[in-house]
């Protein structure tokens, strides 16, 4: 419970996401800044991008991104700059390399597997004889007789 209170207090910073004074004068540059910051994670928050976050650190990062853009960096350079300092953890979209390939390929592989299984099942159903024609079991015969008697 104490931890929860602590977390709530941390959240309770008086700032809100992107502030008017942060916005760059050049709309094209600002657009790129928004694009980049929506893909970067606010490190002290829980699963929020710096673009949405109210935390002070997120504001610092937003300003940093804009600083780099104004200095003439390309989008990739800005992202690399941030990743170099804060690690892979800041990327909301994990890079598709190394062990992360498992993550990226899990969906497609599962879809192919599931599709194959389904195809085998459907083929099996399409080719099998309707069971009804195989006749009734002894128990079912007995039950049928019982019903017919009623």
């Amino acid at each position, binding site marked *: 419970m104490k931890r929860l209170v602590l977390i709530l207090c941390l959240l309770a910073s008086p700032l809100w996401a*992107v502030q*008017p004074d942060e916005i760059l004068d050049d709309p094209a540059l600002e657009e790129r800044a928004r694009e980049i910051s929506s893909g970067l994670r606010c490190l002290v928050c829980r699963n929020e991008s710096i673009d949405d976050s109210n935390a002070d650190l997120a504001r610092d990062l937003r300003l940093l991104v804009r600083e780099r853009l104004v200095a003439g960096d390309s989008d990739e350079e800005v992202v690399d700059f941030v990743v170099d300092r804060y690690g892979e953890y800041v990327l909301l979209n994990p890079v598709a390399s190394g062990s992360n390939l498992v993550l990226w390929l899990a969906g497609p592989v599962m879809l192919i597997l*599931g599709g194959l299984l389904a195809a085998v099942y459907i083929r099996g159903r399409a080719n099998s004889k309707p069971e009804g024609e195989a006749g009734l079991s002894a128990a079912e015969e007995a039950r049928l007789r019982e019903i017919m008697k009623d």
Partner: protein
Amino acid sequence: MITELGHFALILAFFVACFQSVVPLIGAHKRWAGWMAVAEPAATLQFVLTLGAFGALMWAFVTSDFSLELVVANSHSAKPLLYKITGVWGNHEGSMLLWVLIVTLFGAFAAWFGGNLPPTLKARVLSIQGLIGVAFFAFILFTSNPFLRMDVPPFDGRDLNPLLQDPGLAFHPPFLYLGYVGLSMTYSFALAALIEGRVDAAWGRWVRPYTLAAWIFLTIGIALGSWWAYYELGWGGFWFWDPVENASFMPWLIAAALLHSAIVVEKRESLKSWTILLAIIAFGFSMIGAFITRSGVLTSVHAFATDPERGVFLLMITGFFMMLGLTLFAARAGAMQAKGVFGLMSRETMLVANNVLLGVSAFVIFVGTIWPLISELMFDRKLSVGEPFFNMAFTPFMVVLGLILPVGAMLPWKRGNLGRVVKPLAGAFALAVAVGALAFAMQTERSALGPVGLFLAAWLVSGAAVDLWSRTGRGGGRLSRLTRLPRADWGKAVAHAGFGITIAGIAGMLAWEAEDIRVAQVGDSFDVSGLTITLDDVREVEGPNYLSTMADVTLSKGGSEISRLTPEKRIYPVAGMPTTEAAIDNGFLRDVYVVIGDEQAAGGWAVRTYYKPLANWIWGGAILMAIGGALSLSDRRYRVAAGARKTRAVGVPAE
């Protein structure tokens, strides 16, 4: 005194659950009618006792009994009555009590309305449900007891998290729990069927109402949560792919798959073992959801009480029920022979495709949700999986699903002719393409999202309409026949159309949203997407347990006033926490969303304005889906023909 009675009732309910989980199971095995029959009063008693315990806790909250630890931590005497009541489940212990109350409620439902179930099946279902109850009663009593007293009661409480003091969030948890726990009922039915060794059309018919109910509640619960996020978090996001959101979304997807595959069991006696497996997995995902929310293993914005001890306990419960279910499944699934034969082009095939798509999409979310954990444990890579990944990995499944849905919904059972189905749908398809093209022509952005979304929406809605119309046969009187169609047909069409509406809302909002962030002086006017926003005044207002900075904003178009909005910024002094109360002008085609920010050092206020096209369609679609489910649930065949498999005192077990 009342608190002690509630505590005692909870302990009694635990023992009743123990009894209920053992005796009827033995009775069903030995065919002892008395031992089986005891399940029903036990289920009722369990429910009544748990209700008593819950009532006692609610009483403590309503009367602000600060000798209870839980009340101190989550309530305040100045809190409005509504939030005193909803505060009961606005915390870990209370919400677990609500959870177990719903477990017993569903058990009692099966006891009260399961009159046409064969006695052995009924006894086994209730006994498994009792076993689930045992696990959760033990969890509450041993790790999260809500009835603990304080040594020295304080004068006042620490107040409920202000974010939870909101109607949207107050009723979000009960609906979600009704959904999660509803899936425990399908699990019980699945296990009982495995023990019986028999799954047939009648089983499909019995289990479908519970699946439907669980799915409807999950739909409402998720929609409420997302609607709350939209108006409360201050910038109009409605879905964050947060682990806890995913935890509710995965069971929803699996329940949707289950509810479609149960149709195949009911109507065609195929897909039996798959349906059983889905029922087990669906409950597994519910349990994983509970685990994720309460263990703190995955960081999430839903900072619930997190405690490793509880996490381990919940993980053990999850593991136990999954092992039990899957072991039984492995042992018995072979006995379940599919009967129905169907061709490649048939409703069955399309429902298999539906299940593959829904199942794999849930799997993708599952992998994405737990990947940060696996990656850190196994590869020593600390990373995040967030919105961009999920958007990219999940959306294609929904697009494909939306594309094939209207065709699949109209294909006949067993063997169909694709040409015959496509012909009536040609008009719907043309309409959808036209809508998509129009959206493409009118937008200024070059994104495909909006047009594709509107195309799918038009395709789904008009496809559902064509499907309904085609069921009225030929000749005159089709309109009157339309009104007399079975409710299930209407439910299907409404739910599918709702899916389309939600897609339209999400696509429209994501593709064409406009945003304006600025400093405005009192008296300033500015334009956003052709509308004029005027900041008339900013004043301080005092609420019952908060202080508010409230702005008066006028929204107008071409000089004529549309509405007056009062966005607020609140501080809850006891909890020491600010919240934003956005002011939203709801419209059919768009929302205008205004938020007041901080006073600037150089004068003026930060004001954010968002123009959100089709925003309400997201929740409108969800409501339609829920209504569709409810229509289907009220179909008379669940009431009239539910006893299709006549009861037999002595069944023939399939060994």
